[in-house]
């Protein structure tokens, strides 16, 4: 699955990680105050986790096909587990949750592995949304019924359904882009994750006007704009790796960055509602799997359907 375009993208990622690691090490050396030291320590932990995540991701994409799908299946499982762990559930939810973890998640990714696009796009919003509330009603517990159903369905939509659109990119048939879908997937992840980083960095450097201080105190107008601009430029300069023209690539990258921002603040609002700062502590410096994937949740289905309707040969 590795071609020359992919190797170039890998080189860019390795260079970015190296730059981040060097910055973190310099910051750690130069830190004099306690606050600076703790920021530098967090940055180093973040960079170590980035290397691990990038390594796992690159190896799975390089092996290709089913491995990538399994990786995202496991990510969905871990993200949904983090969400359910922090969300109050009751005895009556037990069987429905068992179905969610061990039947629904594997089945959704099985449909994706079989490239059954129309089946996987309706499985969760139609079939699962019938099965889960019905199973919970049959369990007979009525206290907070609507709230409990909504929580589980929200978790399944964001952690499973939305995230499953990332590996689904592999099954798109794009004109003049045969066999390069893994590169497109790589492009998507790169833009959304880079936007996270640049939004954070420009926000720290120039941030003045907070967007939603109660939801996410670090999000500023300046950070958002910085992320959008950098994403647009990076998108345009990586157009050669995609089926898009440079202008379209820039526009799509800006759209992805904005969708990433929306996913990020929405999942933050959910965290505030539950009363936690991070979904778990699995990835040192980042928080949980869901803290890392929050910006992908909204961007993935939007990107999938946009590319499918505009660039697919169907």
């Amino acid at each position: 699955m590795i071609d020359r375009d992919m190797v170039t993208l890998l080189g860019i990622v390795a260079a970015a990680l190296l730059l981040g690691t060097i910055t973190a090490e310099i910051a750690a050396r130069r830190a004099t105050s306690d606050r600076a030291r703790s920021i530098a320590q967090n940055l180093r932990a973040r960079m170590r986790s980035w290397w691990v995540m990038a390594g796992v991701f690159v190896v799975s994409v390089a092996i290709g096909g089913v491995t990538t799908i399994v990786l995202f299946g496991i990510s969905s499982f871990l993200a949904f587990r983090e969400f359910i762990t922090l969300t109050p559930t009751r005895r009556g939810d037990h069987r429905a949750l068992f179905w969610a973890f061990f039947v629904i998640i594997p089945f959704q990714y099985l449909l994706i592995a079989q490239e059954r696009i129309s089946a996987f796009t309706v499985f969760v919003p139609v079939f699962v949304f019938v099965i889960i509330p019905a199973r919970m009603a049959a369990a007979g517990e009525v206290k907070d019924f609507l709230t409990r159903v909504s929580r589980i369905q929200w978790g399944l939509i964001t952690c499973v359904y939305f995230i499953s659109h990332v590996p689904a990119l592999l099954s798109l048939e794009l004109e003049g882009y045969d066999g390069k879908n893994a590169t497109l997937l790589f492009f998507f992840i790169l833009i959304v994750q880079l936007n996270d980083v640049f939004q954070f960095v420009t926000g720290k450097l120039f941030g003045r006007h907070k967007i939603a201080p109660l939801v996410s105190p670090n999000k500023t107008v300046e950070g958002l704009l910085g992320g959008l601009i950098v994403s647009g430029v990076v998108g345009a300069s990586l157009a050669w790796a995609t089926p898009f023209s440079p202008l379209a690539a820039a526009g799509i990258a800006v759209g992805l960055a904005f969708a990433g921002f929306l996913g990020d603040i929405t999942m933050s609002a959910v965290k505030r509602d539950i009363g936690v700062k991070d979904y778990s502590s699995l990835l040192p410096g980042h928080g949980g799997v869901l803290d890392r994937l929050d910006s992908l949740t909204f961007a993935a289905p939007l990107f999938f359907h946009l590319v499918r309707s505009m660039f697919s040969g169907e």
Partner: protein
Amino acid sequence: MIRAGVTLLIRLLCGCQARHLSAPSRSGPRIYFANHTSNLDAIVVWASLPEPCRSNCRIVAAEDYWGRGPVRRWLACRVFRALLIERKRVTRTNNPLTAINACLDEGRSIVIFPEGGRFLDDEPAPFKSGLWRLAKHKPGVELVPVWIENLSRVLPKGEVLPVPILVAVTYGEPLSTEPGETRQSFLDRARAALLALKDSTT
């Protein structure tokens, strides 16, 4: 090897993150007492203990559950080396406290569930007197409260299939009996120490 496999399986299923509010290993036997909400409690505490505490520790488990059926018996006796005790028909010869006391006398730590059963409430039931009698048998022994968070959601009473929710096991500060303390006031104090861990996790 089988032990490592079982530990890995348990960790994959429910994380078993251990939080130690007091240093985990000390010389001398300790009595760990935990809230009991699920049949998996015994295995989860066992899996969350760091070595060498784990190999020096026996888990006190109910004969009428863990002794039934070849798989459970094998798990209890061969894998996590539980000390199976009789709950239902206690006579002079099979008094569970004798076996547990012998264990403590050997210098081994034990894990017990002082509620004497699983309860569906959010808070632990009143403790049975076993904890007090063990503490009296070995004056000065450290009693460590252990709060198991979320396990009742992994495998609630009456369910067979587990759900992989993340479990946290919190080890609190050790306490011991105080001179002149009555049975009830000690048991209340121990239960309060356990409940304090619950509040510290949320």
